[in-house]
Structure formats: structure tokens, C-alpha cells
């Protein structure tokens, strides 16, 4: 734990509600637009997302944050290894949903871990391959 990581932690706690409000607004507009305009563009899917969360608090917060966003919903969660199954209304591909959930997770872990957050699994993959996916 350094001074820098503690500062990022405090900023993360303050940032989480702002990010949540933004996510809620964007999701509401998207689903609201879907409901009000004729035709259907939804492509739902159930996606398994491995998490970096470890404690019960982190996993349950994560499941709730995903459910809170309109357009995505937690269907099941597992404790060890930490995984959530997410129903997403707009799934272009597996990786787009996983990236979306990991963005929420980044913001959550920044607020719960004073010691700094571990890198994303797919970022590690990318480093080994030496190229961006």
C-alpha cells in the first residue's frame, strides 16, 4: 500500500456513484429507446464472466451492480472461483459483454481495494500476444 494507491482508492469510492449514475442513464435510454421504437434490435445472451472479486462483499456488490444496469441482469453467481452468469440484452459477442462487466468490476475494485487492483485477465492475454484484441 503506497500513498498513491490509497489516493486512487479514495477517488475510486467517490467515482463509483458517478459511474453508476452514468451507466444507469445510458442503459435506461438504450432500453427505453428499444421499447418505444418499433422493431426489435435485441440480441440477448447468457454469458459466463470470470471475476477478480474475492470476498463475499465484492461478489455480491458485483452481482447487484450488473443487475442494476438496465439491459444486463445477473442470473447466477458462484463463489469459488468467483464467476457471474449475466443475461445481456445487447450481446454482439462474448468478449464485448465480458469487457463491459470487467469495466464495472474495475470501478468497483478501485473503491474496495486500498492496495490497488489486479490487471484484467484479457489484458494479460493481450500482453502475451503482444497485440490488442
Amino acid at each position, binding site marked *: 500500500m503506497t500513498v498513491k494507491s490509497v489516493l486512487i482508492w479514495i477517488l475510486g469510492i467517490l467515482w463509483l456513484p458517478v459511474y453508476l449514475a452514468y451507466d*444507469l*442513464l445510458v*442503459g*435506461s435510454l438504450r*432500453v*427505453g429507446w*428499444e*421499447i*418505444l421504437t418499433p422493431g*426489435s434490435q*435485441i*440480441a*440477448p*445472451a*447468457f*454469458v*459466463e464472466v470470470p471475476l477478480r472479486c474475492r470476498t463475499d462483499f465484492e461478489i455480491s456488490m458485483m*452481482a*447487484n*451492480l450488473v*443487475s*442494476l*444496469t*438496465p*439491459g*444486463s*441482469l*445477473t*442470473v*447466477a*453467481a*458462484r*463463489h469459488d472461483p468467483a*464467476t457471474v*452468469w449475466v*443475461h445481456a*440484452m445487447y*450481446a454482439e459477442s*462474448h468478449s464485448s459483454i465480458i469487457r463491459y462487466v470487467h469495466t464495472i468490476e474495475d470501478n468497483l475494485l478501485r473503491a474496495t481495494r486500498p492496495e490497488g487492483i489486479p490487471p484484467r485477465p484479457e489484458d494479460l492475454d493481450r500482453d502475451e500476444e503482444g497485440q490488442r484484441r
Partner: protein
Amino acid sequence: MISGELAGDLLMLAGALTFLVGALGMLRLPDMYSRLSGVTVSGASGTALILIGLLVHQPSWMNMLKVALALVIQLATTAVGGSAMARAGYLTGAPKADSTLFDDLVVEAEEDTNSEEHPGHTRPDNDS
């Protein structure tokens, strides 16, 4: 403070319309899981707009505290309730929309081949 009252009224009207959108979503969306997402629109955004409109209408520190508390509790319970309903729906085999692209949970269920119980009984976290 006429303008404050007007802004509060507009926010509350927007909240009520958001509830209407959520109700229309019940009819428009194809399956249970999408409909639950539609409920979240009204349950989270609609309630938030109405509460914030109320605060703008009658601003005071006490009201701010009450609205903040109500918002936090409302958002938490909406999320927990949504997850619980989605889980219950999946476990009892609620039909999925035809446009569903893929389902990672099916793979989990098929691995447990010797289960002779209700197909929805299998769930990822009780494999022993």
C-alpha cells in the same frame, strides 16, 4: 423559488413517464429476462427521477438525507430483487427468446448428466 418548483415538477413528470416506458416494456419485450431489464428502467431510473424531483421541489438538508437514504435502499433492493427473480425464472425453466444467441448456463447443466430432477434444478453453485 418558482423555477425550482417547475424544475421539480418536470423531473417528477419525467420519472412518471419513465414508469410508463417500463410498463410498455412488459408488453413489448420478448422474454422474462428482457422484461426484468425493463422493470429495472422504471424501478431504478424512474424512482431516482421522482425522488430527485421531490428534492428540487422542496430543497433542505433533511430532505436531502431522506432522499439519499431512499435512493440507496431502492437501488439496492431493485438489484437484489431483479437477480432473485431472474434466478428463480431460470431455475424453473422460463422460456428464452428465440433471438437468444448463446447460453453459457446450458453447458453447466449438461455436464451434470446423472441428475434426474427437474431440468431447472441444476445450477452452477451446488455441484459437489
